[in-house]
């Protein structure tokens, strides 16, 4: 990827949500995850993905230029739609939250339903209804 080194010093975190295309198979999802992990290692990107068959909720961390390049591709990726950015902030001082993960994965299930319900008004997990703050808290809890 072409990127000016002068643009790579700013570390940011981005969080977005999107709706999975209804015809996406389990294999397609495995592909997405594998692809993301490979590319992220190469590009110094770390992050966390939550997926429940309907919604993606993802936090990515890395250089501002790299993340924006990735975001441009994600907006036009036909495997999901209605991508919405919830938060983009510069990581100062405390650094990355997901530095150990090229892309960590969490799948909401009956086992961990209480954690998702903790921040939700609805029984079913829907990140489109959650504030950025709730999502940040949820992500932090998943990391511990």
């Amino acid at each position: 990827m072409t990127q000016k080194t002068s643009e790579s010093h700013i570390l940011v975190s981005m969080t977005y949500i999107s709706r999975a295309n209804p015809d996406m198979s389990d294999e397609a999802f495995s592909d997405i995850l594998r692809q993301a992990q490979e590319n992220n290692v190469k590009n110094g990107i770390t992050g966390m993905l939550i997926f429940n068959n309907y919604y993606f909720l993802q936090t990515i961390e890395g250089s501002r230029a790299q993340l924006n390049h990735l975001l441009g591709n994600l907006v036009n990726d036909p495997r999901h739609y209605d991508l919405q950015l919830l938060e983009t902030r510069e990581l100062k001082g405390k650094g990355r939250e997901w530095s150990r993960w090229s892309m960590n994965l969490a799948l909401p299930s009956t086992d961990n339903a209480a954690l998702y319900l903790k921040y939700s008004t609805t029984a079913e997990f829907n990140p489109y209804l959650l504030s950025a703050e709730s999502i940040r808290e949820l992500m932090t809890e998943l990391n511990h």
Partner: protein
Amino acid sequence: MEQSEFLEKRPSNMEEGRHLILRLTYVSRHNAENSNIEVTRILSQSRRNNERDGITGALVINDEYFLQSIEGSRPVINALFRKLVNDKRHHALQVIECSEVEERLWSKWSMKHLAPSEQDREYVRKFSAGTVFDPYIMSTSQILRFIETLSDLQERRDKDGVKTKSLGF
């Protein structure tokens, strides 16, 4: 699951998250030589659409860059953002900051136009490590404070009725 069944059950929904105010600030490089006519057209078009969609904001335009802050309901801002990503009038769009806010910063303007003038050079220096204005290497807070500083300066000049020579830097 059938697509129609799916869509019926889970429509793309502009209602979800619409109670949240989102502010998104980005920088990009313009493609064409921006004649005054083009700038005027971009501004009048965005003001018309923004008024309709409840969006407010500020746009800094100089010789090379757009610096724009838009604020409004979360799904509405994101619908606009997805269009901006594919807008052929600019490229290398980078989101600088995006956050939920309690109140708007630009509530008085459907799109406040900020044109840096020759006199504003000192403010370029104030927020830049080098001599050349390059928002791509500026930090989030430098960019946000630069936009707010330009806005304050313009308010003061408008009040005093000072005429400025608009120049890129």
